[in-house]
């Protein structure tokens, strides 16, 4: 076999006994190559040298099965072929430990289609835990990304991090202690994120500049912010069609330990915000004891007040903007700072909003200044793009909270805030007219079906 010879020739390091022995019942208790269809290599637990050799020598469409034990990694595991599958023996049984890496590397770093990672833990990566870029067909299943020291600014930025990818499934996984976002889906299309647990991160679960995402059955607890959806300016994918449903978002009161960036502006105790977002449904979730508040609907101007920085040439866009009512600065451009066409319905709200974080550092803080001691409403809207507070309230942005009868609602005219006056606000009773609509313009978000 050419591959075997190549690898044997080129790798001169430790000599490991037992070359002919292909039975490893003790180190492959859950999965070994006999259970894998297609080309497969096994790497003994703890043998990080063999793991690096495999990653850099095998060809496309190969499964690497990792044995039980901790692999002490001094460099990132870099994968650059299509069809790379990485399978351990279980979240508590196989660990890739990057704590002794002396260069700035991610844990697992993959570019290539059809990527799968399953049944292992990635620990203490200097940068991101598992970064998967430009893949079509991504599966994260029963994996954990974490850092040993909670609340440390020097922890890596993102834990589970698919970016610029299509057809992404993240399920039954855990993301902990990231100094930015634990589970961060960025610039992706066609995404299912389900039944994961995110704890101890600044942002628990982020959906950023992403189209067609279904986020359900997840638990976000003890983060600074629980589950958030937003677009950043200048990005060629305009986020749309995101469903947050049947998640549990509670006790997200962790001190904000981000060193900067968008997440540093998240007030402590935030359940969910949707920012610079459209066609979003936030339904059937359980919100509990988030000190600042449960749901905020915010314009992108809150983090980037210069509208011109949100201008995108239409020709530069990836993904569809069909059916979206995007603003335009000039012919051939769109702008995506506006939040609009959002449905909030059927969520449970318990005990939140009692200690809002209005710290100066938080650009989102002005939303909360109106509340002097009173509990913050379950759903807050910044009213950017609506008429002035002195006129009858409008709902130009089609914000629909009519079905959210278990919570309260207020729109705060943030644009009218000044150094000397409080933010005016409008606080209707259920069904919250004129915000009493219950269906998205253009119809509900369609179900995400992965191939």
């Amino acid at each position, binding site marked *: 076999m050419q591959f075997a010879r190549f690898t044997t020739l080129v790798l001169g390091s430790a000599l490991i006994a037992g070359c002919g022995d292909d039975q490893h019942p003790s180190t492959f208790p859950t999965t070994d190559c006999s259970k894998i269809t297609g080309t497969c290599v096994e790497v003994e637990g703890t043998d990080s040298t063999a*793991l690096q050799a495999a990653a850099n020598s095998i060809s496309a469409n190969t499964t690497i099965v990792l044995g039980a034990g901790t692999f002490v990694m001094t*460099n990132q595991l870099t994968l650059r072929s299509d069809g790379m599958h990485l399978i351990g023996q279980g979240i508590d049984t196989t660990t890739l430990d990057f704590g002794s890496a002396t260069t700035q590397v991610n844990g697992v770093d993959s570019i290539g289609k059809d990527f799968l990672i399953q049944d292992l833990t990635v620990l203490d990566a200097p940068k991101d835990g598992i970064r998967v870029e430009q893949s079509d067909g991504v599966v994260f299943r029963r994996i954990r990304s974490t850092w040993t020291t909670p609340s440390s600014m020097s922890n890596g930025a993102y834990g589970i991090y698919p970016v610029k990818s299509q057809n992404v499934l993240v399920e039954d996984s855990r993301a902990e202690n990231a100094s930015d976002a634990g589970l961060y889906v960025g610039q992706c299309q066609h995404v299912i994120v389900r039944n994961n647990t995110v704890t101890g991160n600044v942002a628990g679960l982020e959906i950023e500049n992403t189209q067609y995402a279904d986020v359900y059955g997840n638990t976000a607890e003890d983060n600074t912010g629980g589950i958030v959806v937003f677009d950043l300016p200048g990005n060629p994918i305009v986020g749309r069609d995101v469903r947050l449903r049947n998640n549990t978002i509670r006790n997200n009161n962790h001190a904000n330990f981000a060193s900067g960036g968008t997440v540093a502006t998240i007030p402590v105790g935030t359940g969910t915000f949707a920012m610079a977002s459209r066609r979003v449904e936030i339904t059937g979730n359980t919100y509990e004891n988030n000190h600042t508040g449960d749901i905020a609907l915010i314009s992108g101007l809150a983090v980037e007040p210069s509208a011109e920085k949100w201008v995108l040439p239409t020709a530069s866009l990836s993904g569809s903007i069909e059916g979206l009512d995007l603003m335009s600065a000039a012919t051939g451009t769109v702008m995506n700072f506006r939040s609009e066409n959002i449905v909030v319905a059927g969520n449970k709200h318990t005990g939140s909003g009692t200690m809002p974080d209005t710290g100066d550092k938080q650009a989102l803080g002005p939303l909360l200044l109106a509340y002097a001691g009173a509990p913050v409403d379950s759903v807050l809207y910044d009213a950017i793009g609506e008429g002035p507070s002195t006129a009858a309230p409008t709902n130009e942005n089609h914000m629909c909270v009519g079905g959210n009868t278990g919570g309260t609602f207020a729109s705060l005219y943030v644009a009218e805030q000044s150094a000397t006056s409080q933010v005016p606000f409008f606080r209707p009773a259920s069904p919250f007219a004129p915000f009493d609509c219950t269906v998205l313009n253009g119809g509900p978000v369609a179900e995400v079906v992965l191939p």
Partner: protein
Amino acid sequence: MPRIQLACLIAGVMLSAGCGGGGGDDPGPVLSGPVTIDLDAPPPTLLSDYHLFAWDPAAGFTFNDRVVPYDLNTALFSDYALKQRAIYVPEGAAAAFDPDRALDLPVGSVVMKTFYFPADQRAPTQDLQLIETRLLVRHADGWHPLPYIWDADQHDAVLSPAGEVRAISFTGVDGSPQVSNYLIPQRNDCQGCHAEQAGTGAPIDVVLIGIKARHLNRVYDYGGAVGPRNQLDHLAELGMLTGAPAAATVPAAYDFRPIEASGVSALAGAELDTAARSYLDINCAHCHNPLGVQGMTSQLFLDQANADLFHLGICKRPGSAGVGNGGFTFDIVPGDPDTSILYFRTDTTKLGAMMPLLGRSLTHQRGAELLHAWIAAMPMTGCVVDL
């Protein structure tokens, strides 16, 4: 179902029995024949099997026929490693000139770069330790990267796809002790820099970085009968480069050597801008260009061709910079380098925040000084911060 035991695969070069492998048999550095590039065979285990060049501590590098050493005006910083670069172009073929992009080298060509450290940077030709030689071999389907690591006795280098992180101690240019956590890239890391893509989802091509006319347009002392000669002109005279105008008419990147020797205090105005843009072009633009696989995410474009101030970073907020922003808001705040993320990331040695992503564990003092001066000299316009 092919089933391979990695424990067997890593058994090593010296072990010929049991795991089905053999070793190379050419132990010496001496050039024993013409350059040998067999594109159909698996790559040689030993670097010496290519007969590209020989290394001897006393004689230095000796290059075979049609292997031409070269240098760059401004070079990528790699923890103060010194680099010996060369290209090989097969007999009867030539590279095609391009005014902006990399020279188009014919199939069978090799671009090679050997990284080495002197014990003391103040004596850059003495007590040298060769670390690694990286080859890019031009196949019909593109460039194939092949990393070789020099053995302890410095006789030869061994194909080493898995790479290595190695602590290397040396005395710095200022006489201070330095320790680099030097990254010898794994094979898959090559695409971290040598990659280009027409857009998200498009095929990723392995590309050359330094072999561009503006970087090569300088004098190199070839010694012997040739002596000092412009590199582009010399390649053309050898018949290894076609379509090149006279080097004197080709734009040249800034020569960093005076800055490395004496600092940036003498630079001002347009010269400072040219020097900084050349530095960014070679140190950052391999990712930070519109075709850069990872750089396109950031929308920060530091290539020589970019004339758009926003994409150059002026008052631009970063994308997903994470801890890399250093607590600052904008990539470049004109006139204020100390709150500019671009300066922070190129100056810091904080893991997770450093730029470039690969190959730097120390601060390039003169490089950081240059970028600091460049941003400081920009007219202070202020960036809009808040509501």
